[in-house]
């Protein structure tokens, strides 16, 4: 199992990771090596086996239906690199066309 360079670039885009050309090359060979190891799973007969997503066997864990105090706004935004008027500030998300 090996990944193409184009696949690595596409996955990096999906994962929102900026990688240099050298990092893309290294990622291509390392991920291919890991996927080769993972391909052992293709040999297992999983016919009729239910997937396990979690192991608690809990169903509908509900908390008390009551109001809880939440963080003060100043505490909630204190760790942000850029705030304004008590809010997080980011560059425009929508681009002009």
């Amino acid at each position, binding site marked *: 199992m090996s*990944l193409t360079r184009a*696949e*690595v670039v596409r*996955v*990096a885009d*999906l*994962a*929102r*990771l*900026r*990688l240099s050309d050298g*990092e893309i090359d290294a*990622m291509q060979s*390392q*991920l291919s*090596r*890991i*996927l080769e*190891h*993972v*391909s*052992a*799973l*293709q040999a*297992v007969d*999983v016919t009729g*086996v*239910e*997937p*396990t*997503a*979690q*192991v*608690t066997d*809990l169903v509908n*864990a509900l*908390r*008390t239906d009551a109001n809880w105090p939440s*963080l003060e706004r100043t*505490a*909630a*935004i*204190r*760790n*942000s*690199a*850029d705030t304004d008027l008590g809010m*997080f500030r*980011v*560059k*425009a*998300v929508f*681009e002009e066309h």
Partner: protein
Amino acid sequence: MKLHHLTIADMRARLDSGELTAVTLTEAVLSNINANDTSVGAYLHVDSDGALAQAKAADARIAAGERTPMLGIPLGIKDVLSTKGLPTTCASKVLEGYIPPYDATAVARLKNAGGVILGKLNMDEFAMGSSTENSAYQLTRNPWNHDCVPGGSSGGSAAAVAAGLAAGTLGTDTGGSIRQPASLCGITGLKPTYGRVSRYGAVAFASSLDQIGPMAWTARDAAMMLQVIAGQDEHDATSAPLAVPDYLAALGGDLKGVRVGIPRELFVEGIQKGTEQAVRNAVDVLKQLGAIIKEISLPHSGYALPVYYIVATAEASSNLARFDGVRYGNRSAGESYREQLDATRGDLFGPEVRRRIMLGTYALSAGYYDAYYKRAQQVRTLIRQDFTAAFADVDIIAAPTSPNVAFKFGENSDDPVAMYLQDVCTLPVSLAGLPGISVPCGFDNGLPIGLQLIGPAFSEAELLRVSDAYQTQTEWHSKRPA
């Protein structure tokens, strides 16, 4: 023995008898940190003033007659756990400077119980690694041999106990991150059943696997810590709605009739001779204590590593999407929102974290989901069923924690799969959500070896009892590094 090398139980006795105050004890450990942590590198942040204030408060409670397990005990916290007012970086540049506005539940419970929080401990970035070499900040050295790694990802938590830089520590274990460093540093480390300890405030890596647990010299010490941190929490919907047993009261007694299974598959190919011998000797000790030894099979455990590296990375790719540089941590420069986002994540996550995000994103992406993620979850079911079948015949399972003793820095860094193989004995247990404990069982070439004991879900009391029985017969947990 020097104060900073005492077990929690010994400290407890001296604090309760008035022979020692929490302030004296905290000062002794802080002074050992000052003297020795420059070479060990366990701590990312030490809070001397806060610790001394907590010690003073603990002394007042002791003077008022309170007698509880953690009161006045100096503790360290893995830097993946949120601590109100203390930096929490997950050993990542992406969270440099982040100061949480709240405590993780496990931390809050230790504080309320009078535990003295000394500071935050180094780890592999976002708990991804088996040597603590993936920390963005510093190396942590194995106290038994400074040329060797302490294991990981809770390497700082393990090294801190071994070097007398804390009496007990909290670690987290996703695929072996408490048990493997405990083994490599010669201490006791317990990964509780998934759901036994609230994960609230633990920065998430793989949410279906992550679990917080105690690391200390002995099973008795681990029992004292678990007593405080275990139990349901309204902030974590996956925490178990079960009563917490009295772990200390469960200790004692012999092992007559306890059925111990030895899974041939966990004595993996390539296991070091010294490790295998020490683990088999430990099994003989259990037998002498009355246990019945049976060979068993966990036929799908060989698939645990590929299953883990799909399931855990898939969950990580989703969990780590929150690091966008907007709400906390650092932010890289860029012309647009998207450029800033990609630059922040590309620049500030380390190589192993980026690799795992990429792998997980790939496994979840359109066209690959069924072949990778769904299939891995199906094989996870088979691994879990292996344990269910085994526990029909035995009460606990004994195996090595790690196939080898601590290795040298850089030795497994070039090939990610070689590093992943470090966790081959612990991964099946994590995927099944079961409790596992590593207890010191010998040395090879001056480096510690760990015996792993595994039990059915919520069998921590029995695991601790068997470990404690083993430790009444052996001295490995009483050794201290030079």
